[in-house]
């Protein structure tokens, strides 16, 4: 391990000015539309086809209450529920498939790859037609079913990459020191997987909250997620409250992220002393 790290430790290479410019341009490309969304959240003009000038009035009206919040909360709720289910069953499955060998394993593996490789559109319409054939009404339940289905594989594959780097003897060491299978899982396997579980959870939320295609097929009249609501507006007029709420979300995420980094930094410093 140590030797490997040493070998792979790349000396800082010189990066040329034009390369930095290139990187910056790519990020500009990635973030330009986001700046545009933020800019339009201050737009005086309500038709949003042109930008006329700055106002904060949209923010005050959105913060007082806006029907779109219910769609946003639904999206967040859905993302969290789907994440919890995906992480729980996905983590168990990853460990089970890592520890044991059984005949059906390769078929389950095959199933896992379907959501990764088949266009979401197909999964969406397949879910819709099956759910309606089974007589289910489209709503929160069908959304959860479909979201977990495409989140679970990502959780499992993220975790699997981590578990593959495991030193198998670490689990054996726990057993050797008197921990049985479940105690080993609780005290050693899960804590070691924690960063992977965290990454998988983040991945699951990210995919779920951004999803339009599958949600579009399986959401019902009363239960419309934020992205699906936006899709409904997109060919006509996008109302400014959409921009406002999105801006609030992205700013919150950035703030949360910075806070996390800060806490981590303080924590590390504290621990070194």
């Amino acid at each position, binding site marked *: 391990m140590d030797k490997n790290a040493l070998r792979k430790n790349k000396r800082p290479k010189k990066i040329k000015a034009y*390369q930095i410019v290139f990187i910056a341009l790519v990020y500009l490309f*990635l973030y330009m539309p986001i700046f*545009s969304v933020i800019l339009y959240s201050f737009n005086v003009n309500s038709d949003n086809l042109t930008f006329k000038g700055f106002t904060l009035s949209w923010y005050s009206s959105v913060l007082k209450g806006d029907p779109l919040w219910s769609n946003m909360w639904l999206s967040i709720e859905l993302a969290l529920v789907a994440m919890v289910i995906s992480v729980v069953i996905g983590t168990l499955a990853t460990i089970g498939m890592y520890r044991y060998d059984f005949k059906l394993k390769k078929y389950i593996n095959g199933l896992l790859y379907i959501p990764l490789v088949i266009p979401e559109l*197909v999964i969406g*319409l397949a879910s819709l037609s099956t759910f309606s054939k089974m007589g289910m009404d489209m709503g929160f339940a069908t959304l959860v079913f479909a979201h977990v289905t495409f989140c679970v594989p990502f959780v499992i594959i993220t975790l699997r990459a981590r578990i593959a780097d495991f030193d198998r003897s670490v689990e054996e060491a726990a057993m050797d020191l008197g921990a049985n299978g479940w105690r080993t899982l609780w005290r050693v396997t899960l804590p070691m997987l924690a960063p992977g579980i965290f990454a998988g959870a983040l991945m699951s939320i*990210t995919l779920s909250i951004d999803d339009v*295609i599958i949600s579009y097929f399986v959401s019902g009249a009363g239960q419309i997620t934020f992205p699906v609501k936006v899709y409904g507006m997109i060919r006509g007029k996008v109302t400014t409250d959409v921009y406002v709420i999105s801006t609030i*979300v992205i700013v919150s995420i950035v703030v949360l992220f910075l806070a996390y980094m800060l806490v981590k930094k303080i924590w590390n410093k504290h621990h070194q002393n």
Partner: protein
Amino acid sequence: MKKIKNNKTRLSILIMVGPTALWLILFLLIPMIYVVYISFCTRGTFGGVENVLTLDSYRKIFSSLYMSVTLKSLVMAFETCAICLVIAYPFAWFLSKLPKNVSSFLQLLIMLPFWVNGLLRLNGWSNILRDSGLLNTVLINLGIISSPLKIMYTDGAVLLGMVYCFFPFMVLPLQTSISKLDQSLIEASMDLGATKRRTFMRVVLPQTLPGIFAGTIQVFIPSLGAFFVADVMGGGSSVYLGNIIQEQFLKARNWPLGAAFSVLLIIFTLVVLKFYSKVGSLDDLA
């Protein structure tokens, strides 16, 4: 791996793997099979399907109108891949030259936009690019152009939207591949007399090929089905495979035809994966 299975191990396997297996069978495998079945059914009078088996839907797919749309979609998907690759490869390469903490921060920045809905980001582009949008306003006010540039609602705009939406999926596998590259291989190649260019062709490119393939697949496949990009950027004038399927299912209520197109999409996917499985691992696609 334990070979001798007693009842306790069986129970453990069932508890651990069972829930995921059951979930995937119920909500993934059965729906996929059902779609294939629908594609052979007859369209119901009021939408839905009637259980009369026919090949009608498949005959329709091969009509010249639909074939040209299919072809156009494939070309668009190829173009999207090519542009993403050409930008993403040097981008990932340059990123790898940065110090570790900077590059991992920048990597997070690639994922961050996903927290603003994809549709809205596309709408952000249309706010910039449309005739009365930010770009044209600025250019006209600066006196560079006199009449607005027609960018939105063209095939070019759809391509831009596609590249924008799927670019991160090209970057991430490439980054993984490039970060795995052993620096001493490059040094060895140069030591043995290969120029930088030759080193790239003979050492770097073959080593990063799995990343290139993984990225290509992750861009190619979803771009075949992403109907909303054409909706926003093409403004309804551009019709691609994804739009047809979506319309058949939700507006024209012709489920069998939509399902048949889906099967076509699945077949494209399987063909691409067949090639891919020879060079890379499916796990790299996550």
